[in-house]
């Protein structure tokens, strides 16, 4: 090869003997060096493909990626390091699964996308929405149905479900109608801020807090209730006390009771056959120390206040599966009770009778209030839908989720209402928390109460964390300004819960008032206004659409006003 090279070189080399000899010598030295190098020196920074950790994937640096890498290196030299002018935008960088970190020590690690959104298939998204929407309002659906009348209740449930679904759809679409700005990590309060300025931001925050704090108060009342009943069951079981005669209710193994017969019947109680006066029994020491309204709310403070002060709520997020289990258990419980009790339905359209309520009642506004909170997910639907794998199916998945939720509520409501033993008891007896209609000695219901108690203890700190993040974030900029700030907030929230549990433990009312309040703005008014404004800005507002959305706004406001008058 040396010879050939020198012969070729000769074609252009000037005829100089010294040049030739030098050339030969150079070539010879060069080749010796090459030989030596090949045998002894290892190649530096060479990463064998097989050393790539965590994925035996094939090829590795795609042509586009290597070209992009070269560009990024070069552009980085053209500006100051803090200058973002030539920094690669997100849509240009390969996704996390195609990024590797090469170590000079000879291995390459795949980049685990730290914040990379996990894309969920449709079924997971639908389930997540169902899970989030299913709250304690499921316990109040039979009562709400009773307040509205059976047929009217079913009609209202379906209508409110459809209306809230439409408003949810509006919220989902509202991010798309904002031009020029990257709205990919916006939630609904940000959209309100864009359209209505600071007023929109603060009002949407305030009403979102109303729903959260309302939920926390309901939780406190329910937890007191369940703790009381659980404790009572255990005490009665341990001391073998038979409580079956002290409450007004049915006889038999599947006992259903009416805890407040006078108030339910408006004082006009002509059925005295099974009514046993409670004044006969003396409150025992246990009853003094274990009272639903007097002492238990305070016991809960000792249990829950420390949990609220945790800096991070991720520990409690692990228990969200309990919520699903509890709903499934409730459905099973309802089915079993309905099978055992049988159906007791009579249709009286407009007049009420001794045992039955009319099918259409003027108190229906209470049910719409409850349902507004029951179908409320509008403050976090955008976040939930963001991780849907096939974004084009968002509307379909949302509708399916709402359908499932509606069916669940409908099932529980209809079953409990229909199975409520009406000849001895009046339908008016259905309690805002339908588990109250079962005595504390009922084993199935005891399990339900204990389970729900445990589940609520794990969700309560999560709710507290959400409230804290929103309030502290907006007021002070940080999620945890200091222990004192957070503690004060927690004291306030817990205080409201304790006061409600002591003086007004009617969860039906708490749910309907808070539901109608936050529903008015976040469900009806703001989404409709935002939609109409964005249409107006692009000049596409037609009068049927304006009419319909104005009607929605009026409905939302009427919903809230109706809570006070009906």
């Amino acid at each position, binding site marked *: *090869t040396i010879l050939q090279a020198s012969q070729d*070189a000769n074609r*252009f080399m000037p005829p100089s003997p010294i040049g030739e000899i030098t050339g030969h010598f*150079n070539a010879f030295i060069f080749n010796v060096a090459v030989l030596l190098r090949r045998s002894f020196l290892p190649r530096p920074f060479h990463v064998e493909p097989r050393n790539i950790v965590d994925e035996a994937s094939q090829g590795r640096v795609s042509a586009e990626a290597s070209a*992009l890498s070269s*560009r990024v*290196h*070069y552009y980085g030299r053209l500006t100051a390091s803090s200058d973002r002018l030539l920094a690669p935008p997100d*849509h*240009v960088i390969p996704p996390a699964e195609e990024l590797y970190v090469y170590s000079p020590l000879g291995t390459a690690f795949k980049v685990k996308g730290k914040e990379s959104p996990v894309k969920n298939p449709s079924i997971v998204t639908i389930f997540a929405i169902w899970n989030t929407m299913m709250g304690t309002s499921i316990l109040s659906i039979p009562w709400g149905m009773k307040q509205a009348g059976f047929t009217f209740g079913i009609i209202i449930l379906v209508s409110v479900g459809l209306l809230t679904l439409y408003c949810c759809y509006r919220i989902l679409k509202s991010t798309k109608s904002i031009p020029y700005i990257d709205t990919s990590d916006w939630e609904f309060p940000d959209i309100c801020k864009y359209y209505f300025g600071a007023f929109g931001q603060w009002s949407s925050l305030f009403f979102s807090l109303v729903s959260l704090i309302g939920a926390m108060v309901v939780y406190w009342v329910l937890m007191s209730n369940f703790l009381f009943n659980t404790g009572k069951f255990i005490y009665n079981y341990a001391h073998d006390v038979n409580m079956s005669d002290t409450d007004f209710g049915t006889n038999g193994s599947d006992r259903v009771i009416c805890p407040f017969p006078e108030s339910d019947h408006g004082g006009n109680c002509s059925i005295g056959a099974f009514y046993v006066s409670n004044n006969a029994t003396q409150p025992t020491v246990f009853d003094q120390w274990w009272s639903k309204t007097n002492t238990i709310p305070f016991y809960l403070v000792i249990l829950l206040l420390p949990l609220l002060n945790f800096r991070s709520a991720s520990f409690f997020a692990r228990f969200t599966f309990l919520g699903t289990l509890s709903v499934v258990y409730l459905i099973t419980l309802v089915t079993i009770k309905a099978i055992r009790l049988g159906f007791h339905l009579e249709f009286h359209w407009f007049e009420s009778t001794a045992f039955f309520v009319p099918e259409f009642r003027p108190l229906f506004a209470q049910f719409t209030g409850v349902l507004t909170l029951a179908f409320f997910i509008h403050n976090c639907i955008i976040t939930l839908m963001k991780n849907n794998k096939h974004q084009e199916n968002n509307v379909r998945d949302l509708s399916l989720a709402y359908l499932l939720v509606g069916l669940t509520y409908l099932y529980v409501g209809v079953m409990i209402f229909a199975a409520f033993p009406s000849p001895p008891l009046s339908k008016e007896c259905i309690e805002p928390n339908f588990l109250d209609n079962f005595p504390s000695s009922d084993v199935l219901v005891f399990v339900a109460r204990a389970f729900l108690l445990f589940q609520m203890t794990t969700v309560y700190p999560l709710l507290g964390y959400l409230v804290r993040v929103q309030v502290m974030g907006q007021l002070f900029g940080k999620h945890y300004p200091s222990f004192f700030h957070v503690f004060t907030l927690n004291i306030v929230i817990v205080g409201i819960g304790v006061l409600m549990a002591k003086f007004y433990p009617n969860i039906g009312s708490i749910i309907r008032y808070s539901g109608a309040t936050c529903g008015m703005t976040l469900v009806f008014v703001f989404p409709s206004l935002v939609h109409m404004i964005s249409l107006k800005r692009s000049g596409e507002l037609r009068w049927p659409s304006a009419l319909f959305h104005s009607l929605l706004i009026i409905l939302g406001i009427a919903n809230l006003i109706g809570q006070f008058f009906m």
Partner: protein
Amino acid sequence: MSSTAMKKKVLLMGKSGSGKTSMRSIIFANYIARDTRRLGATISTSGNLETAFSLLFCFVFATVDVEHSHVRFLGNLVLNLWDCGGQDTFMENYFTSQRDNIFRNVEVLIYVFDVESRELEKDMHYYQSCLEAILQNSPDAKVFCLVHKMDLVQEDQRDLIFKEREEDLKRLSRPLACTCFRTSIWDETLYKAWSSIVYQLIPNVQQLESNLRNFAQIIEADEVLLFERATFLVISHYQCKEQRDAHRFEKISNIIKQFKLSCSKLAASFQSMEVRNTNFAAFIDVFTSNTYVMVIMSDPSIPSAATLINIRNARKHFEKLERVDGPKHSLHMRMR
């Protein structure tokens, strides 16, 4: 004024914020100084500022909007950057009074459109007024239109959108002929577009190419590339077998420009480079007054001196080529 003494211009025009400064910086390896860019952005994109305020700015920092770079391009072409339509009232007046000066002696007009722009009508209006000025003052100029920031468009729509724009632009440009490219600084399209532009500006490029082929075959090189001197855009190349990496031209260009940037920090200038490996030997060297050459030999046993001498001899031949057929490039002024 004789045309040989007047420097011919390459006009890089477009709306403010369309990416001209970034483009120039990337192609010509100019460091973007933060202040001028920010000032420029403040003034140019200040549609909402009162005219008085911006007038004050412009009187004080009058040179900001008008970027006369001292980049020599293809011999003696000078690159000028102009913001079109940044401020409706002020720039229009400034524009019209200086119009003839700006548009005289233009060799090339490169107009940059932002594909995301919401004011298509306005963009076309400014483009047409530039074309009118060109027709009046430099009717022989070549016109190129770059539809920029295509990375912001979804991949499946890029072809469609570009085709639409191209049709509109070609229609609007009559009687001048414009060549359209779609570009983005985040893929190879920018480099390819500018390479095509430079290719069309080299006076006798086909002859250069055939001579390059002969040269490569004689010295038995694997690949020979011819780069434009200021920008390291590939003017032409020859390869004797299929190469794996389609992006190698841009990568080489980036590497050399980074090296040039480093050299300039030491007040040194880059002239030539030799890279050796067990598998190949690559030589980058000055070739003619407007070009650099890169020769890649896959037989590393051939001594460097041989190849360098070959290149030196070829250089004389190619310079003759340029001189003979290129009257526009006044090489007489080149003092070495």
